[in-house]
């Protein structure tokens, strides 16, 4: 079914597209989309996002890399997203292979298929997309004419469950690394050498990890015994880092989708990295150090974005935009310039301790949806454990300022199952919610609405909590019920996540290569879109683990030892294992670690020897 050409695919798809949900997901002729000539470009890449269009198109990294690759005359980049289940059924029934949106060419005809791994529960979609494309799932089964299948993104820092399916992974920031890889591919295409030779060459690029060059052995009890690198490749693969973010490529003519996507607005990346040091947060560890863009650069980009997209809103994005040192002048300047054209500004998240009510009042999005704060834990003791440096006074001050400025809706984010959590911490959440309601009443807020959102802690690789277990499902579910009963109030809306979903996320976040068989089994059994509640089929997962004789609890619920070889020990984010151990140890002693932007160096290890440093513009 893969011999079909683009015209045939287009003709077939056109016949059934009116009968699928949101046909705009599968058309690819959006404003600013790039349609390059196939024949005059040397390397053809399809950028694959293993979730639906509306999610994938909302992801800034996807947009950066799509436009970056296309900015090179030699390279062509098109896009593909996971087809929703209705479209998948139509594709299979009509024997149409998965195609790239711009040209409708089958994925199989591309030189390279690059997945971004944002979420463990999209792993089955990666396999399913390969299957829909008619590409053999396992690297070892693919032939010379098949595309290279590569993958990056945060989950590439522990990609072991995907190791047999992906030719190589890209760790870290791809702005400089990916073009180098594509150059090597162009050479390889024109002057083919044996597969292993090419992989050995590409393994020399910063951050490239070729799993087949690393042999993993296991102990009898299932723990990893050792990870052996073959000669000629790095023993430990270190991520790639963009040294000068201010000068780095940024797309100023981004695609404007026709159908509404999750984050349907212009995005300006004000900085990269976060050094607050929350001990559960993987992004806060793997994107270090903090590097900011200058206000001049951002305003120049904003001008081009407004003109090229016509969007009505600019989002200032980063892991913690309230911490950007020039946030106030940049928001002020953008509003002064474009407010008259009805262009607003939004901030994705606001910190409690640096909450700036005037800033919040200026930005449009928060006003509509209510203000969100994330104390994460219910007591000061537990907030010290996770190094969330906010106090109850900070929260009450921020909420009070918000009430005085006219907000009536507040959303609080918490986590349950954090290391050392006790009953007292749960009661702390309930007490905090009551205090917020009480403050609202005393401030004369009418129609007060409080949303309490509780997610379950998922230990992640490359964090100080990587040695911690996830709490058992039954116990997490009990805590959810306890909170649900305690938070019964008509002003409160209580949200919580499905525990089985969080469990599976933990399994794959800390998984090893043996999980690959489970993944393939589950995918063949029909698991996909596992992060979507209505699609999640836990029974099939349980069956898959049973079938392959692996205990998922071994990965999710086991406490690891400092001496254990971790499945990701050969992959390095720059933050040293020693620092992570220290942080873990400090967590258990309820001790805080300061942010290196405002205090001294914490010795996390990312800056020395890598030619990078904290780069603040304010």
């Amino acid at each position, binding site marked *: 079914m893969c011999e079909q050409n683009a015209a045939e695919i287009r003709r077939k798809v056109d*016949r*059934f*597209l*009116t*009968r699928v949900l*949101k*046909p*705009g997901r599968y*058309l690819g*002729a*959006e*404003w600013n989309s790039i349609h390059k000539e196939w024949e005059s470009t040397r390397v053809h890449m399809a950028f694959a996002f293993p979730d639906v269009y509306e999610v994938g198109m909302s992801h800034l990294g996807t947009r950066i890399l799509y436009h970056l690759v296309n900015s090179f005359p030699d390279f062509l980049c098109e896009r593909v997203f996971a087809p929703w289940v209705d479209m998948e059924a139509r594709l299979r029934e009509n024997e149409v292979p998965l195609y790239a949106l711009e040209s409708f060419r089958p994925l199989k005809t591309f030189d390279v298929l690059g997945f971004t791994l944002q979420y463990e529960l999209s792993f089955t979609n990666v396999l399913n997309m390969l299957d829909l494309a008619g590409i053999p799932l396992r690297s070892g089964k693919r032939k010379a004419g098949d595309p290279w299948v590569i993958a990056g993104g945060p989950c590439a820092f522990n990609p072991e469950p995907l190791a047999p399916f992906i030719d190589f992974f890209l760790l870290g920031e791809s702005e400089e690394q990916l073009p180098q890889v594509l150059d090597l591919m162009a050479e390889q295409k024109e002057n083919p050498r044996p597969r292993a030779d090419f992989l050995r060459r590409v393994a020399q690029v910063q951050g490239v990890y070729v799993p087949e060059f690393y042999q993993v052995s296991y102990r009898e009890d299932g723990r990893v015994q050792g990870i052996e690198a073959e000669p000629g490749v790095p023993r430990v693969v270190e991520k790639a880092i963009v040294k000068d973010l201010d000068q780095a490529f940024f797309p100023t003519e981004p695609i*404007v989708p*026709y*159908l*509404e996507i999750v984050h349907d607005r212009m995005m300006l990346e004000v900085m990269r990295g976060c050094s607050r040091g929350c001990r559960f947060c993987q992004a806060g560890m793997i994107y270090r150090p903090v590097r900011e863009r200058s206000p001049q650069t951002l305003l120049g980009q904003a001008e081009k974005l*407004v*003109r*090229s*997209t*016509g*969007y*009505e809103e600019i989002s200032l994005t980063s892991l913690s935009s309230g911490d950007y040192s020039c946030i106030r002048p940049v928001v002020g300047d953008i509003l002064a310039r474009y407010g008259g*054209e*009805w*262009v607003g500004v939004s901030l994705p998240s606001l910190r409690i301790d640096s909450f700036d009510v005037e800033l919040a009042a200026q930005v449009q999005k928060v006003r*509509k949806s209510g203000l969100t704060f994330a104390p994460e834990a219910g007591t000061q003791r537990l907030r010290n454990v996770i190094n969330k440096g906010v106090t109850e006074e900070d929260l009450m001050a921020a909420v009070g300022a918000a009430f005085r400025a006219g907000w009536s809706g507040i959303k609080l984010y918490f986590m349950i199952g954090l290391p050392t959590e006790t009953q007292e911490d749960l009661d702390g959440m309930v007490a905090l919610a009551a205090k917020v309601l009480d403050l609202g009443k005393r401030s004369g807020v009418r129609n007060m609405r409080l949303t309490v959102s509780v997610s379950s802690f998922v230990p992640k690789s490359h964090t100080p909590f990587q040695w911690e277990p996830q709490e058992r499902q039954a116990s997490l579910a009990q805590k959810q019920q306890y909170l649900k009963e305690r938070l019964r109030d008509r002003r409160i809306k209580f949200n919580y996540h499905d525990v089985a979903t969080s469990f599976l996320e933990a399994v794959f976040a800390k998984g090893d290569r043996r999980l690959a068989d489970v993944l393939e089994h589950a995918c063949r059994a029909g698991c996909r879109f596992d992060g979507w509640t209505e699609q999640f089929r836990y029974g099939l997962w349980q069956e898959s683990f049973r079938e392959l004789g692996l205990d998922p609890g071994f990965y999710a619920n086991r406490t690891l030892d400092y001496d254990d070889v971790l499945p990701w020990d050969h992959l390095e984010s720059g933050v040293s294992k020693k620092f992570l151990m220290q942080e873990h140890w400090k967590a258990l002693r309820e001790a805080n670690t300061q942010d290196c932007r405002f205090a001294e160096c914490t010795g996390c290890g990312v800056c020395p020897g890598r030619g990078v440093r904290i780069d603040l513009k304010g």
Partner: protein
Amino acid sequence: MRLRIAYSKMEAAKFIAHLDLARVFERAMRRAQIPVAYSEGFNPHPKISFGSALAVGVEGQKEYVDIELRQEMDIREILGRLQEQLPSGIRLLEGSVVAPGSKALMAILNSAGYLIRVPMALPIGPERLREGVQAWLGRGHIPYARYSKRGPTEKDIRPWVKRLTAEIEGEEVVLELEVEVGNSGGVRPEEVLASLRELENLPFDLEAARIRRTGIYVQYRGQNYSPLDTPKGPGAKSEAR
């Protein structure tokens, strides 16, 4: 100033959903740097409004949109600048200034024509086709089941159909359909097709039907007028009321 623009929405643009179309125009206007007027209030929205919604997948040969601007501009310049910023399937055809206080498109458009091409699953002759269509039109009452969240409901679709002709072109049947549109209901062309197949056994391959709305009109005393040049009638200026 308030503008009324006629446009076509063909090819891939037929997949742009009605709810998304306002955003497509809003963003195109901002790229073209034509200042759209916004509503007052807590959650301002652009003053862009359409006539009757076009279903996803149905082409529109001549559709209309009203756009209010914050300042006076030359209409030809507006059309030229806006056209450059629209997706390729949307062509601006003509436009004119609408007097303040005129009724909205939604309130005046009451008639629509469709051209439908549908392949035959089994070959039939023109005689059989004509008989089928005549028999269908001869029915006084044509129930059709619609499915909503509250379960199936049955509606009589016959009153909405004003004219229907069909002929054979190669392996396809080409139908011309004229229907009444209104706030109180209506009929969708694919419902007419499905009903013809079900009640008169006409062998249409429904999945492969291609539908185009050829026009949408202000019908007044049996005559179809464009909302751009309606004479004295329901769509005319306020003094004519």
